[in-house]
């Protein structure tokens, strides 16, 4: 017999099982690949003629270029994550500082960048950063993609700061009390007792943030970076804007992201599960 639960309880269960963050499963991959095949075959059947090449041939021909664009997305994501994590770690430590003015300032910075739309920050950086950079006698040209890196690393910084703060504050107060009563200084408490425990708890949300960041690198196409989405658009134009190619090309890009991000999402869930059991 099926047990029928009252609705609020069902909702509560659902929400406790899966937070509203991205939860990829292998089923999504199969669904995606299936859809891509379906579109491609349908498009192929509808559109092939002696003067137009088949959809498969088009995908194959442009794969090196699209992968090249995708590599730029990965580069942007890795660099933004590295810069954002380094800055965010400092900001996060400032958020838990006993020094009030420092904590207040850090809170303001965090709130500002956490609540700003990523795309707006990107546009802002593209326009605010100079085209040329003079350092001594050197003259660098700042490419658009490097501005995108800086633009995206700002919200990453704010989110990492919150992850650090949350991780540190999730450690029971007794750990602070015990180490304090043993004579550890605050600096020692933080680095020897609290952070080694907190980092394990920070890792899953940090990886989750990276997955979100990677998908968000496609925003760079809007500000003119030659990322995979921009290139996909150019491929479509080069093929004479055939409408039958739209779904297969963008589907192909989706699959690229899926293949890259799914293992990260999987590993994140494994880690979460592991630490849940231990704690």
């Amino acid at each position, binding site marked *: 017999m099926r047990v029928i639960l009252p609705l609020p309880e069902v909702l509560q269960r659902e929400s406790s099982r899966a937070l509203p963050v991205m939860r990829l499963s292998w089923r999504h991959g199969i669904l995606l690949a299936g859809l891509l095949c379906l579109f491609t075959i349908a498009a192929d059947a509808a559109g092939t003629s002696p003067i137009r090449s088949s959809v498969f041939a088009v995908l194959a021909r442009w794969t090196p270029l699209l992968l090249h664009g995708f590599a730029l997305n990965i580069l942007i994501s890795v660099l933004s994550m590295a810069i954002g994590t380094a800055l965010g770690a400092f900001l996060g430590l400032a958020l838990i500082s006993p020094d009030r003015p420092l904590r207040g300032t850090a809170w303001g910075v965090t709130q500002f960048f956490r609540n700003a739309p990523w795309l707006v920050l990107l546009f802002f950086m593209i326009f605010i950063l100079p085209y040329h950079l003079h350092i001594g006698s050197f003259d660098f040209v700042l490419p658009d993609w490097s501005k995108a890196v800086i633009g995206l690393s700002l919200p990453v910084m704010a989110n990492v700061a919150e992850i650090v703060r949350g991780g540190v504050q999730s450690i*029971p107060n*007794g*750990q602070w*009390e*015990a*180490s*304090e*009563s*043993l*004579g*550890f*200084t605050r600096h*020692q408490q933080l680095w*020897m*007792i609290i952070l*080694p*425990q907190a980092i394990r708890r920070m890792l899953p949300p940090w990886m989750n943030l990276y997955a979100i960041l990677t998908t968000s690198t496609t925003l760079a196409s809007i500000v003119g970076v030659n990322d995979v989405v921009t290139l996909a658009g150019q491929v479509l134009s080069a093929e004479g804007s055939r409408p039958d190619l739209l779904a297969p090309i963008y589907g192909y890009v989706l699959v690229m992201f899926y293949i890259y991000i799914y293992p990260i999402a999987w590993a994140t869930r494994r880690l979460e599960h592991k630490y849940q059991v*231990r704690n």
Partner: protein
Amino acid sequence: MVEALLVIDNLHKRFGNVEVIKGVSLTVGKGEVACIIGPSGSGKSTLIRCVNALVPFEQGSVTVLGIEVNDPKLDKLKLRKHVGMVFQQYNLFPHRTALQNVMMAPIQVLKRNKAEVEAEAYALLKKVRLEGKEHSYPGELSGGQQQRVAIARSLAMKPDLMLFDEVTAALDPETVGEVLITIRQLAEEGMTCVLVTHEMGFAREVANEVYFTDRGVIVEHAPPASFFTNPTDPRTKAFLSQVL
């Protein structure tokens, strides 16, 4: 009368508008064991947290070996070298083994030689009867075993005064005994101890003086023999009749 090691004089502590300790005074001599008992919420834990400056207090004086705790220029490290504390929830460092838990503070705080500290740590764990568990992580030990590691960890700092905050309250009944044996052994060796406890039988056996607190004041104090047989205050009588 033995030399006084801990002197608390007219201590007041408030959390916001609630005064949880309303003028407590007590003296513990060197080598003596003081037990503080009383209903929950009577300020017992706060009282001993004031002694090692984990909790600041507004009024009154606490001196440990002549060091005034209620002093804005207090050298907390100096105070904490003299005062060890064991908590209800053990609070071992879960990412370190039992041995490392014991060794950390002497090495990092006292900057002592590692080989020396290690030899002492092995001896301390043997003393609390945890030989063979040196390399276990806290998560692999029972509550009673963890609490004994916590005692060894405090002893590694060679304190003059040990504070025990309801150290058996979170334990399974069958492991309470093994922790009490360790504390009794310490008391017999002449360690000055202040215990907040609900173990009346134990208080009766080891204490030199038993203090009964209620609503932030010490209602009554006496050596255990007379405290448990002839309590004078009606509140003490009521409490004892409930717990004994």
